[in-house]
């Protein structure tokens, strides 16, 4: 209610209070989403029953789930494949995006030259990439990884660029006053100062990474080893509608897990955004312990 921000006068936060409400927060952050997903499934079931939807049009949710569990032995390697493509592609895309972002931030000329090409690259429909990529890179996992990376790198680059260009100029000047080298300034200031932006880009990338992997599986062949997307495609031609919806659920689950994983890494990588006091890190801080304590 107080209309004035009192940032300067904020007292050190109490950590006791936080712990007390942690279970409440978890309940709220996990319970409500789960509840609403269950509601969606119930609604779906209700619609199928009330409108007498034919099973070849849409299955009941339980049938979809069962088609997944029944074929889990078959599906699991495909799921692993999709996850692998996602991880490889995401990592490549993020690294490429970060690299491009850093290079472009440091050389304004390259920035101006390369940026339009990057925007252009995102305008190219992914479907048009399949055949050329297979012709150049062959079969197997590589073209799919390239497609995921193609989608992921862009938001990362854009955000890293924004992050690096918003590093406090005064902080950089201060580093100069101290006589810091460019290299140390980069690692000690510019990189940590852009972490939040980097993660913002990676979170957008993560949202689209699994979709990219699925698209990649669809437009580049996997052959004998199969792929989740092809499995779905086949189920579709096969009239196995329950499997189509079941696979969709699996894909969605992979996508959301990946997104949550990135969110989780951000939480772990930026302790200062949540915690008041730094945790003692076992191995790095050993020498902090006074010698007297160490002898005993």
């Amino acid at each position, binding site marked *: 209610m107080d209309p004035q921000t009192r940032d300067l006068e904020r007292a050190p936060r109490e950590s006791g209070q936080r712990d007390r409400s942690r279970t409440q927060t978890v309940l709220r952050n996990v319970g409500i989403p789960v509840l609403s997903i269950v509601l969606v499934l119930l609604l779906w079931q209700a619609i199928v029953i009330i409108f007498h939807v*034919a099973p*070849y*049009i849409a299955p009941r949710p339980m049938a979809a789930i069962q088609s997944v569990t029944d074929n889990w032995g*078959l599906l699991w*390697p*495909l799921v692993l494949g999709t996850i692998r493509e996602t991880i490889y592609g995401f990592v490549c895309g993020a690294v490429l995006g970060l690299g491009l972002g850093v290079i472009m931030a440091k050389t304004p000329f390259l920035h101006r030259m390369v940026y339009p090409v990057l925007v252009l690259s995102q305008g190219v429909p992914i479907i048009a990439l*399949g*055949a050329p*990529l*297979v*012709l150049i890179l*062959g*079969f197997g996992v590589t073209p799919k990884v390239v497609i995921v990376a193609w989608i992921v790198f862009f938001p990362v680059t854009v955000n890293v660029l924004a992050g690096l260009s918003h590093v406090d100029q005064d902080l950089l000047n201060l580093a100069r006053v101290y006589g810091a080298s460019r290299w140390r300034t980069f690692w000690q200031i510019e990189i940590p100062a852009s972490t939040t932006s980097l993660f913002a880009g990676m979170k957008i990338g993560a949202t689209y990474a699994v979709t990219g992997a699925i698209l990649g599986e669809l*437009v*580049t*062949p*996997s*052959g*004998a*080893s*199969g792929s989740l997307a*092809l*499995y*779905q*495609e*086949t*189920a*579709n*031609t*096969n*009239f196995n509608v329950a*499997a189509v919806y079941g696979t969709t659920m699996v894909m969605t689950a992979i996508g959301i897990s990946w997104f949550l994983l990135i969110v989780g890494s951000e939480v772990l990588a930026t302790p200062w955004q949540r915690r008041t006091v730094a945790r003692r890190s076992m191995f790095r801080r050993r020498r902090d312990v006074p010698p007297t304590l160490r002898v005993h």
Partner: protein
Amino acid sequence: GANASAAPLTNVTFAYDFPSPDFELVPMVVAQDQGFFTQGGLKVKVVFPPDTSTTTKLLATGAAGIGFITTTDMGVAVNAGAPVLSIGNYTMSNNWALFAKPGVSLTAKNLKSEIEGKKIFSYGDTWTESMLPFVLRHAGLTSSQVSIVTDPTGQDLKFLLAGKVNIATNTSNYEVAGFDTSGTKGKESTLLGTAIGAPNIPIWVYATTRSYAASNPKTVSAFMSAMEKATLWAVANPTKAASEFDKAYPKSGYSNAYSLAGWKLTIPFMKNSAGQYFTQTSAQWATMARALKSIKLITAVKQPSTYYTNKFLPSS
């Protein structure tokens, strides 16, 4: 052969025409499982294209030595300058057909009334594009008198059963196998294209490039000879052949029932009325080229020998 197993095997990359494996690969699986390739001194690796038109490009770039494509794709590729060469038919006749949902009876007689002003499903493939004009002409209709719904993702059965399209087009082995294993009651009405004006030309062929054929004539011959043994074996033992396929490609997503039904439906089209397998004719290629030219998919009808050769067939 004892002597063949002593010699090192020649590697061959074989490109299928569809992104995922299905029952038309049964002879290939049999050739591998029954050791026909090894006997011929070959080691064959099967690869899959991102889409049906890339198989030809895989051949042209040398990414694959031998491939499996449709006759019309051959025609279009040759027209575009790709040095591809057909080395043997897969099927010997045309099983492309129109389908109507259970309860509708589609016959050559009521063709006009059943398709005029109706929605006809097409995958948008070259084959359907070149066959539909014959059917329309036979029914005395122009293309503006029907509505073509093109869907490369292939939801034909679903749309047909849901009444979103009136007529589906497909080859009978795929369509009927799909319907029979879908658990839907009733029977689809099938009307073969050859009964309503479509030319009776083979749909699929084995192909290579001229340069590959020139530098590896023995390999190509050995391949075709192994395929012949495999095909005859698979025709004679359909159930065993289909389950071999399922074992080779457990993740294809297809049920054994589907693969078996599909393979059984394919068998009748694999030999001609004279009982021949594989043998191509100049007439089939001339007909194909004229059909493509008439719908402007190609610019020139070439000599039939530009498209094919029978010299790698074991019988010749």
